[in-house]
């Protein structure tokens, strides 16, 4: 925001939204990283903390929605101000979903505690979450700088996460086929992997929103996809 409004209270309202989104982003990142750590270390206490933190994100999203509505009603925003406010609402909702996915992963910690997570799978999940968290972290940086080029480049990288998820999916199937006693744990882990993959999608949504906020145009073309799990096991595969 290079220039300031003649009415300073308007600037304060926009700054408030910006600050709350940044806070939500930081908390969402923390929740996801804690959830994955709790999962691989079978740390039920940490998992519980993630579950209880989710309400903070939920409240922040509602607060952002309420403030945005009031600002629209009072200021009749146009052009980039309007895009800023609409973008805030969308980003807050993506971050709230990221928190939900972290929470859902944390809930599964207790279910898999008995059997533990096989080392190689834990590494795979950690790696997947590193990719998703790096993407989330970068997208939050881009939220601060509003660089449309960087927003685009994040969007174009979602396929890395998709590819990693597909490979984990296959690996989990293999374990289940090897020994049916693995099915319960592996199914939970499959949901965890899916949760983390979805976090990447939300980071991509946020990147697209930021691109729109900065340029006023929707990013062109389809986002690249490399999640091929929907066809795993299909006749053509064998």
């Amino acid at each position, binding site marked *: 925001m290079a*220039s300031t*409004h003649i009415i300073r209270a308007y600037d304060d309202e926009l700054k408030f939204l910006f600050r709350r989104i940044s806070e939500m982003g930081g908390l969402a990142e923390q929740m996801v990283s804690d959830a994955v750590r709790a999962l691989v270390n079978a740390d039920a206490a940490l998992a519980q903390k993630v579950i209880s933190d989710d309400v903070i994100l939920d409240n922040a999203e509602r607060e952002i929605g309420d403030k945005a509505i009031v600002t629209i009603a009072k200021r*009749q925003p*146009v*052009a*980039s101000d309007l*895009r800023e406010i609409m973008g805030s609402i969308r980003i807050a909702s993506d971050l709230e979903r990221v928190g939900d996915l972290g929470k859902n992963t944390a809930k599964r910690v207790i279910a898999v505690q008995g059997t533990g997570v096989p080392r190689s799978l834990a590494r795979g999940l950690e790696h997947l979450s590193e990719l998703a968290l790096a993407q989330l972290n970068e997208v939050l940086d881009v939220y601060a700088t509003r660089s449309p080029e960087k927003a685009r480049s994040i969007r174009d990288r979602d396929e890395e996460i998709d590819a990693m998820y597909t490979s984990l999916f296959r690996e989990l199937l293999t374990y289940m086929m090897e020994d049916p006693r693995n099915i319960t744990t592996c199914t939970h882990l499959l949901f965890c992997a899916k949760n983390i993959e979805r976090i990447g999608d939300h980071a991509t949504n946020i990147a697209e929103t930021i691109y729109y906020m900065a340029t*006023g*145009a929707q990013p062109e073309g389809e986002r690249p996809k490399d999640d091929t799990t929907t066809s795993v096991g299909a006749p053509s595969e064998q």
Partner: protein
Amino acid sequence: MNNLSNITTTTMPATTKVAAMNLSKISARDVQVYYGDKHALKDVNIEIRPRSVTAFIGPSGCGKSTFLRCINRMNDTIASCRVEGNIAIDGEDIYDPKVDPVQLRAKVGMVFQKPNPFPKSIYENVAYGPRIHGLARNKSELDDIVASALQKAGLWNEVKDRLESPGTGLSGGQQQRLCIARAVAVSPEVILMDEPCSALDPIATAKVEELIHEIRENFTIVIVTHSMQQAARVSQRTAMFHLGNLVEENDTDKMFTNPDDQRTQDYIMGRFG
């Protein structure tokens, strides 16, 4: 001096010329306006589309009203004012010495900031124009014109039972709609509005805006407004003036979501440039 009719005939085939005419009711080329030494409007070029509403916006003193007043030669009445360049309506140069300003103003009506009804009856306010321009052959024709103009202006139901009472006795919003009826009565092609709602309350403003929406099918409307929201609500095209320059002219939808010019952006968002 550039002349639109010359340009179109020499550079465009006949079919394109017709298409260009349909896209442009009013065409301004390299318009300069001076008040004495002050260069108030610089190099204004714009094509104003027929049967639509074009809004002029910009800070006070930017030249938007000056340009509006050029379109029906209202600036002729200001001794120190000099207009250069070319303004054409349907390809006819309105500053041509052969053009009679009175006839021009019958074709290009105007509604002002403050409602200014004549100190006469409601009926006479509307009948005055058609009568001096000889648009009615008898009283019954004149009655029809008055009724039709008041209906178009959305005022008929409110005044039909008191057409002989003074126009000045109406409320501000009704007076403004009476002025619009007066402008419409002579069947103009273009209606210029200079901040027509700035003296009206929100309800009266909404009625005038609704009226603009209703009549735009039949007229080319150019409106100067200080209310950005009004420009966004009523117009299809918006032109932004700044320090005597036309800095951007765009579809209204684009102008208020993603304008091209930084000065437009700062102005409509209420920011310091």
